């Protein structure tokens, strides 16, 4: 289908997404967009061929057992909270640099690949990331990270806002994509529809294969049914627009995906471990990137980090579910970056991990940990200035939140967003985030 027609139709139909409940912040954002010559911004994002890959660790990753105190008073406090059940022994940690307060630190022993990337100075460890007045609900806190708004309720996400701002006349149905069936709130936008792609192989519009000569008739009718008419209800228009975007994106995607292994790039691609769900998702992301489809932002996720019990196997702190998950993260990112190198795109890719919160300093009584607050996040790529940024959160009892024993943040997650917006995506961060934040020098 002609994409210009599709977008023109959407514009002509006067349709914009539900404005009901649009927050004041989002309202001001859109007013700012109108006033500030968004076209200049668009040129910036379109002109570079950088790709931003967001890796969501869903459930609340235990940051304290991801970047672990390796010595000094911080280690003593760590050992008070983490009993032998969940305590990672010093000898097993993979040492990294000391932080700004000279705390000795190490990665979880499962992070061998990430450690090797770290040694090549391709990993930024951003310590103590969070936001004021932490919310301990998975769902509220995820929404806060998705919308970059810790106080209000927005209906659009920070990546969706970025696309609306930087690509106001976008006609590319694959300007961004979420790998997985659901569309994360990060990608919800007022203007841009971002596809959710559960499985590239089946992401195609099917017709009855027994009547191939009728296929085009059905497709024509399908498009006409979704293009037609005076706008009805907002909901009808939303479904129509999504139907048309689904059709356009599957056409583009199927055309581009073939390049992954048709000889365009050196063969064979690296082997992604199919037992690792994050590796499977990142493989699909790599297949989209291979198509050179102008995709700027990709979102993948791995669930299972809500480790209230069974975080470690009884009395085997190096085994158990958290170790498995961290091993998957390390392996998936490693394979993905190998693949990017194969395609000659490793300089063009930046990864950022995030999780809605860390976990409490003390473990609970069931080989697990309950919901906490601040935790480290990681930025990875050839362009990253590797190292440790900020300080490990204080573990002194008096420095924890009194009702929850959760650690306090020192870096606002929006500082990380702002840095990526400014230095990687070349977008004015204040217009996306509503104000300026101090940048972190990892790019």
């Amino acid at each position, binding site marked *: 289908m002609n994409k210009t027609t599709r977008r023109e139709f959407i514009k002509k139909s006067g349709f914009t997404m*539900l404005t009901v409940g649009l927050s004041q912040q989002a309202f001001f954002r859109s007013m700012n967009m109108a006033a500030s010559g968004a076209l200049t911004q668009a040129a910036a994002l379109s002109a570079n061929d950088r790709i931003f890959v967001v890796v969501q660790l*869903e459930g609340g990753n235990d940051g304290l057992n991801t970047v672990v105190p390796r010595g000094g008073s911080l280690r003593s406090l760590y050992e008070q909270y983490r009993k032998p059940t969940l305590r990672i022994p010093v000898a097993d940690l993979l040492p990294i640099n000391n932080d700004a307060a000279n705390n000795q630190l190490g990665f979880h022993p499962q992070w061998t690949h990430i450690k090797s990337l770290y040694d090549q100075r391709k990993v930024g460890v951003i310590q103590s990331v969070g936001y004021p007045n932490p*919310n*301990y*609900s*998975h769902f*509220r806190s995820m929404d806060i990270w998705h919308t970059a708004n810790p106080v209000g309720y927005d209906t659009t996400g920070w990546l969706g806002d970025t696309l609306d701002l930087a690509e106001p006349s976008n006609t590319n149905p694959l300007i961004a994509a979420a790998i997985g*069936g*659901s*569309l994360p709130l990060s990608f919800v936008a007022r203007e841009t529809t971002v*596809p*959710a*792609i*559960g*499985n590239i*192989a*089946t*992401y*195609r*519009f*099917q*017709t*009855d294969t*027994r*009547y*191939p*000569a*009728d296929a085009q*008739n*059905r497709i*024509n*009718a*399908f498009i006409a*049914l*979704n293009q*037609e*008419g005076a706008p009805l*209800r907002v*909901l*009808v*228009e*939303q*479904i*129509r627009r*999504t*139907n048309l*975007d*689904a059709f356009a*994106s*599957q056409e583009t995607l199927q055309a581009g995906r073939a390049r992954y292994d048709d000889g365009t790039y050196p063969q064979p691609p690296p082997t992604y471990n199919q037992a690792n769900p994050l590796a499977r998702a990142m493989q699909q992301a790599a297949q989209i990137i291979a198509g050179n489809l102008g995709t700027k932002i990709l979102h993948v996720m791995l669930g299972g980090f809500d480790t*209230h*019990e069974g975080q470690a196997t009884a009395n085997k702190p190096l085994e158990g579910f958290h170790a498995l998950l961290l091993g998957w993260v390390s392996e998936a990112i490693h394979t993905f970056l190998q693949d990017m190198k194969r395609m000659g795109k490793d300089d063009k890719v930046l990864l950022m991990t995030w999780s809605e919160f860390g976990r409490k300093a003390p473990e*609970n*009584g*069931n080989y697990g940990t*309950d*919901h906490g607050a601040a935790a480290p996040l990681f930025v990875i790529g050839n362009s990253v200035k590797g190292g440790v940024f900020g300080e490990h959160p204080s573990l002194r009892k008096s420095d924890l*939140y009194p*009702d*929850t024993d959760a650690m306090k943040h020192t870096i606002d997650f929006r500082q990380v967003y702002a840095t990526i917006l400014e230095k990687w995506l070349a977008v004015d961060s204040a217009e996306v985030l509503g104000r300026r934040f101090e940048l972190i020098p990892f790019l």
Partner: protein
Amino acid sequence: MPLDTKDKVAHLLRRAGFAARPEEIEQGVAKGLPALVDDLVNFEKFPDNLGPLPNAPAQNGIPPNTSYLDLTTQQYFSVYGSLLNDMQRLWLNAMITTTRPLQEKMVLFWHGLFATSGADLDLRHMYLQNEHFRGNFDPNTGRLGRLAATHPFPVGNFRNILENLSKDIAMLFYLDNFLNVKLNADVGSNENYARELLELFSLGVNDPITGEPNYTEVDVRQASRALTGWTVLFERDDRLIRQFFFNSSAHDFGPYRVLNRSFSGDGRQLFDIIVNHRNPGQQQSACGRFLGYRLFKFFGYDDPEPEVINDLADTFDGVHGGDRYNIRAMLRRIFTPGNPTSEAFYSDKAFKAHIKSPTEYIVSTFRLLRPTGLANSQLVTQVVLGLRTFSGMIQMGQYLFFPPNVAGWKEGLDWINTSFNLARCNFANTMATLVQPAQGGIDVHSLLQANGLLTNGQLAPAERVVDFFTTLLLQAPVSAQTRQTLINYMNAPGGSTDMINMKVRGLLHLIMTMPEFQLS
């Protein structure tokens, strides 16, 4: 524009049930709205036609006629796929064929609100929970049986629903409360369930009207103490665990303080405190508002007005007379004409403004087009679930017994994205073009014949075929332009003379992809 009676009847049938067939609309109009509401809400007056869970297949050393519930763990794993298939088919069939649509709608509601997932549990606990939500299982005794009048699920006393939920075997495992034991005067050993009980199951993080926080972190930790020792009865041998157990030696008898009330004892008082809790300056209970919001969102529309939430909360609080905390009274309030809540329910804003969940999408398709194969055809089950076609419920985003997380499915506009929409389009194609009725396909020939659209092998003109199927599936006329698009499709040469299998089935495919068919 106010709805006419026929529209109201169709609207009620779609929302309180799963679909409105032409003869059901006709009967409803003849009966009148109040009588129809009574039939739906007092569903016990109709016989329960729910089938039993089939026995396990006699394989891997399992004797014939053995219930899945009696298998050893090893046997259970050896027939896992077969059990999952039987459970999903049983539940879907219940929704498709039920004579008690509102009962089944409420089972789906509780499954979404009190979400646990088969991904982390023994599937048989999910089956027991499904029957628990239907009112057919008692975790105190571990017995399955038909609805007793005192059973709180699915439409009874919400305080008791919360107590039953806290004893539900799947829930005890899913949110770890079976491990929650006395720790210290601050917190139990595991706060997972206590947190979700307050956050997701009874109050919500924030009040849906004022946005004020409903509880504090101290409330979560104190509530976790009150629920210590609420666990399962472990079996000595390898039999399936199916009973709640109050382990007094692991229980912290308090006193604890939750929502500004101090109490002690076995923990049950926690539920009284939750349902009675009022935020300062509020007339309605916080729990009543939470449920008013959730129920109206499920049956009405996404953003209920404060007046509607408060009116339903008043019903919950007993202000409108009758028992307090009663779910059935709230449902009656939503559906019975003549009050502010039902005015909203029968308003133009609500009409055709609910995005069908994948379950509603599929069940409505089956109730309207009546393919019969789901009960006996593996093929159609695979099509519906998406196991073979990659376009069924899994790909539409709703796999029964497997909600994505403890918050259940996000509904409304979250059902709409490119991936989910393609899955609906492709399910429509597969389902519409599945030819053999014996395999679960739609019997298009019989449908056409029974409605005078196929005589002596001659198909009626495209206009009549289009009008018949759009009316059957959408219960309303389509725009002139849409009608013409569909007629043009019927008349466009498609390379075959088999008009029924090519064009009529193609028409079904197209109607099922239309935005109007995604709405109820």
